[in-house]
């Protein structure tokens, strides 16, 4: 995407504000307590991690840690922190702060939902102000990425306080990230100012303002009227409503693969779906590209496994699953499903092949996906009903109690390839995530080995094999990964869309002096 110069200078300059439209407000600014996306988004401006994935989401890059050593096959991790980092209140950032955060997140009294990765560690030892070592019971590869911003908190401000109820810090945090907290008007807006002392350099854009606008149509009108500079477009807005000359002049649109996928999952306790031929037949009957085109207006990618297309963990050797209704029918016939009574619906032992796809309310794309699948399965003689359920009822009464035949649902993707919680045979208990009851000994072994291995090439081999098995067995019909589609005012320069999105280099975005619009006094 080419930026139009022409306005004279094009040099980076300090100043200007970016105003984001966002759907919901945050609840807390302490990362380990946050459970909503706005909280994480705001906190991201204020805090920083020891390390972070690079823009291709393949390797971890140094941030607050200059480097780290993986010793004894991953049993020991030693982190060397930068010496020049200060909290915005002037206090130096040291290994003691990380130790504090580590103990805090592991403390049973702390109300966090993210403790699991840290509980894998046996101990943390501070070697000097800028060096510490973590020792694990067993090597645990996903743990490396967990040393992001979650455990970086100022000990000198929080020690001895009850973090669960510490309203003051959660609302006016002191951080060390690219921006400093400025103002928070509940349910209206939130703003931060650039931190001149940021260790990676003073960010160019002076101010970030988030305006809470719960309705996407309203956000879009605000965008046109100049009330906001950036928002996430819906597929309809991206493809149909932003092609006018005004938009081409004033805005730039970006697209990148997002970190979630949608799938059709089968209850494997149901004898009909326990037959792998039936699952393969269904996967062949569904045209994934058709779903992407119809539901997402083409703004997505069909997927064949639980990894983000375009990153190193995706097994590129697996071809797209063939769309072949004829072969699907043949497979079903092989499995004993034929239309013996001539009513157009396949049957076996006198019972027609009929079932219900469940999905949750409030997610229009999933409902549309299920509807297209319904049509495609009807084409091969399977009678499908679609039922939409309110989220809590869906989870508590249907998923947790295994009262489903087929579901259309999605998973967020973590950046680490570990998939233990979703596919391991042991994870089939109440409120656990292998609710389709998938059991495969080889997968169990691979998942266990994968999370104990630090060597990237070796891990890649493990997870490639894992994807082959999933591809062969089709416990899910993996459907698609949607794309995120942000739009940003054209005066912001330096934006680069990558697998990591566009915000990965936000501190280096800038507005040339002549194009700066405003800075808002609070």
């Amino acid at each position: 995407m080419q930026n139009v110069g022409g306005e004279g200078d094009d040099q980076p300059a300090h100043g200007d504000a970016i105003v984001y439209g966002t759907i919901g407000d945050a609840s807390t600014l302490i990362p380990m307590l946050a459970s909503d996306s706005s909280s994480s988004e705001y906190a991201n401006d204020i805090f920083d991690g020891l390390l972070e994935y690079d823009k291709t989401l393949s390797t971890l890059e140094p941030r607050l840690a200059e480097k780290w050593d993986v010793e004894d096959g991953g049993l020991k991790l030693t982190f060397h922190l930068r010496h020049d980092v200060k909290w915005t209140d002037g206090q130096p950032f040291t290994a003691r702060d990380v130790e504090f955060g580590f103990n805090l997140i592991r403390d049973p009294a702390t109300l966090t939902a993210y403790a699991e990765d840290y509980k894998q560690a046996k101990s943390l030892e501070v070697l000097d102000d800028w060096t510490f070592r973590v020792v694990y019971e067993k090597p645990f590869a996903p743990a490396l990425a967990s040393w992001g911003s979650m455990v970086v908190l100022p000990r000198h401000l929080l020690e001895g306080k009850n973090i669960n109820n510490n309203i003051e810090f959660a609302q006016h945090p002191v951080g060390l990230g690219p921006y400093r907290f400025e103002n928070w008007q509940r349910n209206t807006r939130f703003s931060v100012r650039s931190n001149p002392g940021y260790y990676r350099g003073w960010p160019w854009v002076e101010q970030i303002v988030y305006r809470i606008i719960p309705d996407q149509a309203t956000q879009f009108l605000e965008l046109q009227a100049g009330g906001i500079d950036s928002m996430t477009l819906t597929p309809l807005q991206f493809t149909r409503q932003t092609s006018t000359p005004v938009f081409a002049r004033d805005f730039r649109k970006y697209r990148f693969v997002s970190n979630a996928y949608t799938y059709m999952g089968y209850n494997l306790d149901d004898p009909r779906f326990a037959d792998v031929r039936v699952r393969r037949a269904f996967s062949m009957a569904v045209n994934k590209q058709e779903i992407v085109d119809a539901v997402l207006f083409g703004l997505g990618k069909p997927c064949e496994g639980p990894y983000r297309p375009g990153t190193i963990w995706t097994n590129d050797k697996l071809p797209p699953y063939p769309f072949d209704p004829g072969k699907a029918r043949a497979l079903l016939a092989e499995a004993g499903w034929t239309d013996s009574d001539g009513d157009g619906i396949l049957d076996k032992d006198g019972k027609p092949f009929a079932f219900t796809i469940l999905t949750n309310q409030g997610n229009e794309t999933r409902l549309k996906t299920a509807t297209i699948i319904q049509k495609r399965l009807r084409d091969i003689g399977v009678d499908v009903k679609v039922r939409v359920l309110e989220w809590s009822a869906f989870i508590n009464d249907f998923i947790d109690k295994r009262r489903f035949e087929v579901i259309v649902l999605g998973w967020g993707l973590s950046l680490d390839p570990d998939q233990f919680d979703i596919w391991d045979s042991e994870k089939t208990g109440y409120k656990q995530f292998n609710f389709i009851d998938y059991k495969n000994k080889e997968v169990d072994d691979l998942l266990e080995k994968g999370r104990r291995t630090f060597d990237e090439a070796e891990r890649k081999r493990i997870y490639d094999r894992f994807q082959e098995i999933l591809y062969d067995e089709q416990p899910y019909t993996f459907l698609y990964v949607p794309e995120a589609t942000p739009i940003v005012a054209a005066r912001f320069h330096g934006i680069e869309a990558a697998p990591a999105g566009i915000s990965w280099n936000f501190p280096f975005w800038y507005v040339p002096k002549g194009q700066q619009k405003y800075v808002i006094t609070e």
Partner: protein
Amino acid sequence: MLSYLARRLAGFVPLLLGISLVSFSVMTLAPGSPVDLMTDLNPKASPEDRIKLEKFYGLDQPLYVQYGLWLGRVVHGDLGTSFSRDRRPVVDKILEALPITVMLNVLELALVLAFAIPIGIHSAARQYSLGDRVTTVLVFIGFATPDFWAALLAMTLFGAELNLLPISGLRSIDYPSMSLLGKIADSVKHLILPVTIAALGGLAGMSRYMRSSMLEVLRQDYVQTARAKGLEERVVLRRHALRNALLPVVTLLGLSIPGLIGGSVIAEQIFSIPGMGRLFFSSVMARDYPVVMGVLMFGAILTLLGNLAADLLYVAVDPRLRKG
């Protein structure tokens, strides 16, 4: 009069108890719990985290214990702390949203009355005239138009196309740096669209009510008498008919007092106004029990007080009710 008041107020206690019990049961009967949002389908959350959270919020206790604890706090004037991660007092959240909603609804009501009463009088005085028919059609169009749609059209025209009025929110982004006059003008500008759109729907009901009430009165003997005396039509309408025709409208007003605090979810959502409707909706979706109960109890108390006020107002306006 005082004993009447005391009796009515004493009657509130069992009523409120009943309301709170029903609200609490219905709320907890709904599937899902506040913990779900934090742990459902989050592979990073272990079952132990779930148990920990349930314990913290007291959700591991039997329902009657939870209700008892809640009631005990409320009796001492404490509505509790929100289950949301911000852990703010429920009262704070309600007092933040309440003034906004009340202000919007009072303005809306004033606008409705300002138009509905003249329209009603005019329609009744010239029943079946062209003017009557045109206003009838217009107010019904207003009534039948979905307000979210009207809102979006108005926002597109006045906000995005003409750039005359702000699209959403209650204040401009540079509000703090404005002069006093600028601030007032800014607030007024932000209120025009939401208040007008909300009033559009209410106009039909109120003006039709006014019209039929006026027609009723105009058929009365004393109006005939006034006319027979040779009074001007204007005087007959204003002095003799209007006052009596307003009585039923006053009742209607009393009944709309509780409505003043219940914001409209749709309008608040579209115009990004942080009022009671949005607060209630989001806390129901998050199963934020203390906030849900707090809002419901506020609503219940104001409804009861509203009814009482309507009764008292009625007595004040209608001399016939003062005896007996």
